[in-house]
């Protein structure tokens, strides 16, 4: 998931703040006209909107795995989970803020794989954890937010 351009917009921040149930006036400049609009701490998650290849968004002209007339529009569907991708689940999410994020910033994000480790699951299967690190930089190339996603994949017990 490389995001080449993630414009941080006041209206988008307002919608995000509403969705997380946060009435902090710092997020509502789009409504009040306040010039300085801060982004909530988890806002960079919304960069998915600016990733052309993000798999959990319906693509124009392509089949979607959610329901239409039938429970799934794509028989092989069943992709589950967030940050882990594929059939994985989102296990952990960590953010480091190098400076506050504001409306008007235009970020770009690069990412790389981090560590990978295994743990024995309680029901006998092996849990495979993998890290994914995303660096969000501003137009000047300065680091604004570093995100570390931990995904987990369950390896089913045979039989």
């Amino acid at each position, binding site marked *: 998931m490389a995001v080449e351009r993630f414009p941080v917009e006041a209206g988008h921040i307002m919608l995000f703040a509403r969705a997380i149930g946060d009435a902090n006036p710092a997020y509502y400049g789009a409504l009040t006209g306040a010039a300085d609009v801060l982004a909530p701490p988890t806002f960079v998650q919304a960069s*998915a909107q600016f990733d052309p290849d993000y798999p959990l*968004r319906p693509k124009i002209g392509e089949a979607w795995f959610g329901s239409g007339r039938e429970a799934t529009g794509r028989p092989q569907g*069943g992709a589950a989970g967030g940050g882990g991708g594929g059939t994985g689940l989102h296990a952990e999410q960590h953010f480091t803020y190098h400076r506050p994020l504001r409306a008007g910033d235009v970020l770009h994000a690069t990412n790389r794989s981090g560590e990978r480790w295994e743990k024995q699951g309680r029901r006998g299967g092996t849990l495979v954890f993998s890290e994914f690190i995303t660096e969000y930089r501003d137009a000047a190339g300065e680091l604004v937010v570093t995100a570390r996603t931990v995904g987990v994949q369950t390896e089913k017990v045979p039989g």
Partner: protein
Amino acid sequence: MTQVRTGDVKELVLTDGVTRTQLVQYAGASGDYNPLHSDERFATEVAGFPSVFAHGMLTMGMTGRVITDWFGPEAVLTFGGRFVGQVWPGDQLTATATVTGVRDDGVAELAISTTNQAGDVVLSATATVRTG
């Protein structure tokens, strides 16, 4: 700047009941349209869950309020969490933040726990904030 001491605690009710509409709002705002979170037929008939359930990042986003209401959005230096349990429509969520330490440079360390109405932890988090 907010001054705190080790052991200081803030508790905040995040929601009296998560609604399916809020899950749709979060899908729209975040861009994570995984039908597990907004499509009851897919979640139950295809994926085999009892109903749709909240994005982990929605729970984490809501939990962020206990930090930013206390210290302000600009004070947050780190925020990280582990998704411990699923959040279902109707769940009431409460976040509790405890100051676990204050460094010499004024950075406070927080341990944060978000629980549902049964007292089960759904998100276990930590944060550091600038206080001085």
